[in-house]
């Protein structure tokens, strides 16, 4: 069924949620059922389909968006709406989520975009089949970082020298040690992050680490996304819960399962 809204032009645009494998013989403009929004449609191209919704372009005018983005409640509803649709589809089939705010002027543009990137889209969709994204943050208390940093051989040697030195020399050695220690702290944060990342990546098909930062009196040593097959999710979650047993001091928090947002990027150089 084709709604009136699917007429192109006249201030209409097509909001793209993502790309799926074509579920079966469906006509153009066929509504996708069972979704949070009734007006979701598909634009089909070969064995691929784009999940779209007709929107008023005025609603997404850059100036309007910029102004309304200050309204957190509005933004939350838009972002939540985007996720709701993608998550509902993700429950039943692989979906390649689109970048938030991708709006096309007409259905033909959507179809052309699908056709232009069809090989990489297919490839990416295949690798996302049966996969969920899990967002993970791992923290360590300051004390664990400091302890690790002070374990370095050079620091230990300096400590011994300070203890044995005359007061004047001890002052300079102490300063030198503090500089060493500061450098070692950065190293310790990176090491702990790497250990946690490798530990969790055992259960993931793909993973992506993001820059992490300090959180109060704890240090975030890892912020990462893991793409985990539903067959491996039990092992992955168990590893998250017991991370601190294998790497003392670490605590993990996580959200998921999410659609594979972090793993939707097409390879470099794709059309």
């Amino acid at each position, binding site marked *: 069924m084709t709604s009136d809204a699917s007429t192109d032009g006249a201030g209409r645009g097509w909001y793209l949620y993502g790309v799926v494998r074509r579920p079966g013989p469906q006509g153009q403009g066929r509504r996708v059922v069972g979704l949070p929004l009734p007006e979701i449609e598909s634009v089909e191209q070969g064995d691929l389909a784009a999940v779209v919704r007709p929107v008023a372009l005025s609603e997404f005018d850059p100036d309007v968006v910029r102004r309304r983005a200050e309204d957190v409640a509005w933004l939350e509803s838009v972002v939540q709406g985007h996720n709701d649709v993608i998550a509902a589809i993700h429950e039943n089939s692989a979906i390649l989520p689109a970048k938030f705010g*991708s709006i*096309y002027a007409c259905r033909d543009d959507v179809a052309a975009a699908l056709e*232009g990137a069809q090989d990489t889209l297919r490839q990416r969709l295949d690798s996302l089949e049966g996969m969920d994204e899990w967002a993970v943050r791992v923290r360590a208390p300051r004390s664990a970082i400091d302890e690790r940093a002070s374990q370095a051989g050079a620091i230990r040697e300096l400590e011994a020298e300070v203890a044995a030195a005359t007061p004047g020399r001890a002052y300079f050695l102490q300063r030198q040690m503090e500089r060493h220690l500061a450098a070692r702290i950065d190293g310790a944060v990176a090491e702990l992050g790497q250990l946690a990342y490798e530990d969790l990546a055992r259960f993931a098909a793909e993973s992506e680490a993001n820059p992490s930062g300090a*959180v*109060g009196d704890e240090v975030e040593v890892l912020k990462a996304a893991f793409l985990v097959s539903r067959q491996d999710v039990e092992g992955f979650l168990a590893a998250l*819960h017991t991370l601190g047993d294998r790497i003392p001091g670490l605590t993990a928090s996580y959200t*998921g399962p999410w659609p594979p947002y972090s793993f*939707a990027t097409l390879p470099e150089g794709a059309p």
Partner: protein
Amino acid sequence: MTEPLPASQRATLLDLLDRVIDHGVVLAGNVTITVADVDLIYLELRVLLAAAERLTSLSRKSDVTHDVEVARD
């Protein structure tokens, strides 16, 4: 020692933004809203929300809790 976690923690608006806005496939074509605009808004908002979250987590030492539903609870 790792504290026991619920099977799926609730996501904050910041978690949701981090997943939804910063990622996703960009297809060629006549995209009328520029991705750069969205990214700029995201970055600005992120700073605000991150600051708010830090304040919350300082006053209330529990971490990920807010009123946004996760993808599939």
